[in-house]
């Protein structure tokens, strides 16, 4: 009982800390960080754009690592990690493209151009989308996990391409803009707070996926009809639901 209360209060404090950090990052990005001379206020998009871009890349790396673990162990518990990272990574990658496009309109006068960094980021988004599409179309849990793991492992080759695109190919996207220390501090705060938010959502989603599979297993055991309207279309019983978690 005491332990539960302690866990609850720790979670409560951590949640408030996360909200405070996100708020501080947003406020400091407007008030404390100096305005860049050539671009003006549009440069402030960078604080949120870089944060979600980093998480889009991190999501793919986590997804691929969990997929490799699944292919080696054939334990669905790894597939749950992979799915959770895939869903959040897709969100972050989509937000990167949208915020980047907003910035490009202010900086370059165009919403989109096929330059190397943008092209490789778009390919990453397409890979995320195909990973999720494959998952939604296959009912058998192990078959779905195996195929999507292959897409994730092959797709991760695009991550270094996105990261190095500005160095390897000549494009319009800035390489690593020079920043004042105060700008760097706000950027760091934004990246850390968004990463903490990503980690929280990632863990929640992973637990939820595991529970969904357990409910499906129970339903199959009691011969009840499956009814996850928004959930996975899996009707086969996962053999190692929850496995090593």
């Amino acid at each position, binding site marked *: 009982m005491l332990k539960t209360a302690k866990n609850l209060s720790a979670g409560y404090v951590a949640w408030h800390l996360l909200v405070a950090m996100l708020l501080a990052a*947003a406020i400091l*990005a*407007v008030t404390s960080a100096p305005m860049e001379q050539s671009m003006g*206020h*549009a440069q*402030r*998009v960078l604080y*949120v*754009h870089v944060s*979600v871009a980093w998480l889009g890349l991190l999501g793919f790396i986590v997804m691929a690592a969990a997929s490799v673990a699944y292919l080696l162990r054939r334990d669905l518990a790894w597939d749950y990690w992979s799915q959770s990272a895939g*869903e*959040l990574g897709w*969100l972050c990658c*989509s*937000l990167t493209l*949208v*915020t980047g496009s*907003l*910035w490009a*309109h*202010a900086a370059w006068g165009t919403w989109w151009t096929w330059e190397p960094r943008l092209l490789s980021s778009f390919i990453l988004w397409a890979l995320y989308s195909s990973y999720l599409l494959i998952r939604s179309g296959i009912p058998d849990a192990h078959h779905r996990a195996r195929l999507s793991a292959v897409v994730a492992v092959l797709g991760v080759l695009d991550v270094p391409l996105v990261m190095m695109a500005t160095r390897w190919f000549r494009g319009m996207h800035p390489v690593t803009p020079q920043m004042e220390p105060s700008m760097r501090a706000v950027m760091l705060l934004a990246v850390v707070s968004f990463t903490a*938010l990503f980690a929280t*959502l990632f863990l*929640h*989603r992973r637990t*939820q996926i595991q*529970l*969904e599979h357990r*409910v499906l297993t*129970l*339903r199959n055991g*009691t011969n*009840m009809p499956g*009814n*996850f*309207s*928004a*959930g996975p279309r899996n009707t086969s019983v996962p053999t190692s639901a929850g496995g090593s978690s």
Partner: protein
Amino acid sequence: MATFLAAYIVVWLGVAAFVARLARRQRILQHSLAEIEEQVQRSSNNVAGNERRQLPSRPSRAA
């Protein structure tokens, strides 16, 4: 400043949509768990009823 605000709003709308989806699935999950619990309860009640019917009746005093 409008570009910055638009970017921030887009990001928070995206996060809010993800959290809303998470909450909706949680509700569906809780509903399903309650259904399964009810089903299990009903089955165990049926089993108990059958067992009671199958027990041999006590011999009457007159016998």
